[in-house]
């Protein structure tokens, strides 16, 4: 098992109100899986993604990624862990505007013990994988939205991370470009064996993944398993998926 989440709860205060986007969530994701996470706005999809990516801490519960318990490690160790183990694809790609596509993709590699030649080799492979090697020296402002997102994907996979998380990667794109990006993610999963967890509100996009999860009222439902189980007519709860 690559990701093991147990009894995860996340609460925060908003004025006098306590909001609990995640309530006692448990989840297992195998290495090489492509999992989509759907749900209405504000149901905690991104919150769950951020917990797995190690950029947010839960109120309670545990998250183990590749047998590393990430909820208890320090902020500085967590940063190092993220650099080596997590690739993050943002909805708005979030490229650094002053850096070229090449330099943007190279950024995460600067944190790891690679020499210049190795960094160059990896960046070229990553840009080639997203079919943007010819745009390596272009700045984000010189790229289309879809191209920017592909650079963002190259940046997420360049370190060969254990898990890639994508937060609405097609949310800002038109349908044709979205389709291209989803194909690319699917190809990365099938050809490179990258473990992918994608948050989306688009049912078609979610269907691209091998396994579809839905967050509703802070609880997680495995829709793929439900479909399988419905077809077998065997009902089951959803506390642990």
């Amino acid at each position, binding site marked *: 098992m690559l990701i093991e989440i147990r009894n995860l709860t996340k609460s925060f205060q908003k004025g006098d109100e306590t909001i609990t986007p995640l309530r006692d969530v448990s989840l297992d994701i195998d290495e090489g899986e492509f999992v989509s996470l759907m749900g209405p706005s504000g149901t905690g999809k991104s919150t769950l993604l*951020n917990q797995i990516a190690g950029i947010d801490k839960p109120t309670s519960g545990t998250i183990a990624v590749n047998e590393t318990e990430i909820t208890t490690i320090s*902020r500085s160790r967590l940063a190092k862990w993220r650099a080596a183990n997590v690739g*993050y694809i943002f909805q708005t790609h979030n490229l*650094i*505007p002053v850096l070229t596509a090449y330099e943007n993709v190279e950024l995460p590699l*600067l944190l790891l013990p690679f020499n210049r030649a190795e960094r160059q080799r990896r960046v070229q492979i990553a840009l080639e994988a997203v079919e943007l090697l010819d745009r390596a020296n272009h700045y984000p402002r010189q790229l289309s939205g879809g191209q920017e997102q592909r650079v963002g994907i190259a940046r997420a996979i360049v370190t060969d991370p254990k898990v890639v998380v994508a937060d609405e990667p097609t949310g800002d794109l038109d349908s044709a470009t979205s389709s291209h990006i989803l194909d690319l993610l699917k190809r990365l999963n099938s050809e490179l064996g990258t473990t992918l967890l994608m948050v989306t509100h688009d049912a078609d996009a979610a269907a691209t993944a091998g396994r579809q999860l839905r967050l509703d009222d802070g609880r997680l439902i495995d829709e793929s398993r439900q479909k399988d189980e419905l077809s077998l007519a065997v009902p089951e709860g959803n506390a642990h998926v």
Partner: protein
Amino acid sequence: MFKFAPYLLKTLWRHRGRTMLTVSGSAVALFVFCFVGSVQEGMDRLTSQSDSTLIVFQANKFCPATSHLPQDYDQIIGKMPGVQEVVPIQVFTNNCRASLDVVVFYGVPAEKIQKIRDFDLIEGSWDEFESNQDAGIVGESVARRRNLKLGTKFSVGEVKVTVAGIFNSSDRSEEDYVYTHLDFLQRTPGMNLVGTVTQHEVVLDDSADAVKTSSLIDDEFRAGPVETDTRTKGVFQASSLADLVELIELSHYLGYACIGLMTMLISTTTFMAVQDRIKEHSVLQTLGFSDSIVFALVLAESVLISVGGGVVGTGVAMLTLAGSGLSVGAEAVTIAFSPSVGLALTGLVGSLAVGIAAGVLPAVAAARADIINGLRQA
């Protein structure tokens, strides 16, 4: 950190207008700091000269124009124990009060100049000077300031001198003086100074005690035709510049104020840069940049701006000080504004320290910012 240099430099270039303005502001602050520092250094050089040289002046007189000592005092002083050389000097200045354009003539027996001064003639010749009564050798700083060339005749009041040489000296303040023959200056029309001098400069040997010798000289002439007041050259010069000392001390605070202003300016700019890039820093932290790397990146931006301003400001100040030959004088003693390696290093190290001090708070703010909140920024 060198791996992040492209990001750092491009980030600064992204807001080049703001960066350039801040660098310029820092440069101006460092320029003023160095300028004020050079005045302070010049005064320190004058007032901390070794005790091996004494100045014998007329008691209770302050301006060179009013001090008239018998020239033959040199014979009596020369026989005192520990005295190596006595040089009678007639001083003439165009302005006894504090001024930025004081011209001071030192009339000295021609054969003694090279014994008591470490001068290097960069133009002209000693022979030409010694063989012409109206010849003068001119300090490089005066020559530059007054555009004096070899052979130029120039006059200040009734003193008319032909430039026979231009010298530089290891003591920069000497380059603000014009040296002439003693007889020539004493015979200046309308002054009737033959047989008297303004002061005697007494060079002591290693065995002499400056304080005891000073007392010995003053005791000797207490009952003489003109009473003397003998002090070491450093004390004498400090006393001559007394009116300026407080002003210069005050200007010191102006230099520190410039450093404070520079710190505030850079800190504000760095804070603005951090606030503009809250989301960008959160993205970097999401990619795995640790707090310490983000801290170092912001601090490096602040240091680069500060040191950039420091290099420009210090460089321009050094060039200006070297090229302008500026000085301020009072009572025929001048403080030279001159560049120095020490001052340049102080300016550069100061700018580095300012960069660090100005960058710490913005760097902490950037490093400790909440990643999730940062990613939600527009």
